[in-house]
């Protein structure tokens, strides 16, 4: 009796959260699906009726579609590569005993607290501005011509900005993983004749594999949806139009809600394909 009572009580108490979450997810999802089968042009006649799969066909056959998928994947891949690689290095450095460790760790984590829009603007105006940016001054100090970051190396710039934002996250997770490494294992490897680099490769790296898996999974989910960084820097120009950005342009710039919604459904499918793919490759690291 007691368990039955507490079970139903638990259900009632959890209900608001569950309903809220479901509503948050289901309402936009079903609306997206609903609009994706309609010709809906808010400023040019509004709802013009059902069109079947026409929106889906138009979105894929558009010349902008495949480049945007590639752009998305390049950004996600580039950021993952940089954050995992530098994250491991930083985590190892931060794990060394040093003076002011606590403050240094907080400083390292701080970029994560900066809003994406703000950090992208700071990068754009303070560092990458070809006239007044710090990079421009640095280049000039060496007598070189300043690089026009956001137009000449637009993808590199965006990857750099996003990596800067996500590096703290990777570092933090990897640092906690490194701290949990048994010191005796490293000593055993030392006794067994492993040099520092071998100890890193044979003991530390395998120990970190699970944490790296988590970093990759979580970052991929968020990176597939980056938008603000592109919006405030290149505005989707210079080959930086990701799938998310393309959908935004279809819905708000072209005022074609139906076409954009179809793109949204493709984005969901792409995210799921990548998720399954990742789970297959790295998911085995998560068991046992």
């Amino acid at each position, binding site marked *: 009796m007691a368990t039955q009572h507490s079970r139903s009580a638990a259900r009632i108490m959890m209900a608001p959260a569950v309903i809220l979450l479901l509503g948050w997810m289901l309402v936009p999802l079903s609306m997206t699906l609903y609009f994706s089968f309609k010709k809906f042009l808010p400023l040019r006649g509004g709802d013009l009726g059902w069109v079947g799969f026409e929106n889906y066909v138009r979105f894929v056959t558009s010349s902008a579609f495949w480049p945007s998928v590639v752009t998305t994947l390049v950004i996600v891949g580039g950021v993952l590569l940089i954050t995992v690689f530098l994250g491991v290095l930083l985590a190892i450095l931060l794990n060394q005993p040093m003076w002011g460790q606590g403050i240094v760790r907080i400083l390292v984590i701080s970029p994560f607290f900066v809003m994406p829009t703000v950090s992208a603007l700071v990068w754009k105006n303070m560092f990458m501005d070809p006239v007044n940016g710090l990079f421009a001054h640095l280049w000039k100090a060496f007598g070189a011509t300043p690089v026009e970051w956001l137009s000449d190396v637009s993808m590199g710039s965006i990857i750099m900005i996003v990596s800067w934002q996500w590096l703290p996250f990777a570092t933090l997770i990897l640092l906690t993983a490194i701290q949990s490494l*048994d010191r*005796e*294992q490293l*000593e*055993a*490897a*030392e*006794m*067994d*004749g*492993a040099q520092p680099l*071998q100890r890193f490769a*044979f*003991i530390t790296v*395998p*120990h970190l*594999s699970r944490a790296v898996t988590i970093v990759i999974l979580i970052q991929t989910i968020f990176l597939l949806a980056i938008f603000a960084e592109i919006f405030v820097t290149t505005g989707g120009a210079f080959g930086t139009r990701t799938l998310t950005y393309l959908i935004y342009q279809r819905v708000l710039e072209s005022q074609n809600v139906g076409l954009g919604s179809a793109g949204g459904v493709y984005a969901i499918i792409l995210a799921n394909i990548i998720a399954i793919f990742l789970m297959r490759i790295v998911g085995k690291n998560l068991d*046992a």
Partner: protein
Amino acid sequence: MGQITLNQVTKSFGDVNVIPPLDLEIKDGEFVVFVGPSGCGKSTLLRLIAGLEDMTSGHIAIDGKDATDVPPAKRGLAMVFQSYALYPHMSVRKNIAFPLKMAKMEQAEIDKRVDNAAKILNLADYIDRRPGQLSGGQRQRVAIGRAIVREPAAFLFDEPLSNLDAALRVNMRLEISELHKQLDTTMIYVTHDQVEAMTMADKIVVLRAGNIEQVGSPLELYRTPRNQFVAGFIGSPKMNFLTDAAAAEHGCKTIGIRPEHLDISRESGAWKGVVGVSEHLGSDTFFHVKVEGSKDPLTVRASGEVDLHRGETVFLTPQGEHLHKFDAQGLAIR
């Protein structure tokens, strides 16, 4: 080969002096046990020998060659850690092969040595499993396997049995002793358990606060402890100490008598007392007897058949030839 000489070795962590100048000679093929209470520096001493800690001053020689500045891997010693320190992502085979792989040995030779070690230690059945799938005793064996394939000059064991349950501990104790006979290699073994020390050692080194209190064979330490600390530490249950009147009778500060060297009787004896707690082990019974003129109750070992109850009055008589006398500094008087 496996002769180790420590010459005036010291170790300090900051201002804390853990090991004062210490000399020790370990002969080839000996099974040496470092024993002492927690924090006596026995593990630190082992790590100094291994090279995992740097000495503050002094010299270590292995097989006559100075090894003071030689890195751990080059000393030719193998260590078995308290936590076993197996590599969790490698199979048992890879774990055991790791030191050989690091030494860039040929694959055929590696396989031969690993199979041989697996045979000695009965590891063959789970050679392809990961450490996480093994029981404590099996992990212990893998750790020993990883040590023996290197064919080291000496084995170092850092409290290897402390994570095992009591029955398994007795078992592994025998296995390690057996292994020592088989390999005939120097072994240095650290423990806080004097039973392990007594049963396994050729030579026991009793440590207290980094100082060597006494070095000797188990029976030497048992029969002729050099001071009150060794007398109390070696032997189980521990030796009874009496001061005041009983000691004054023998003309010294303290007298010590082991529980097994006290005769208990209902009728007559040297000291009169009252039975307190009794511990029945079946074969033996330990009585805790409160004796007039002694603060702590005396422990007496009697045969399991002796039937005494709490509150009964008894008489205890020490067997004169087994009485230990200590002076004011705690040193034994002979």
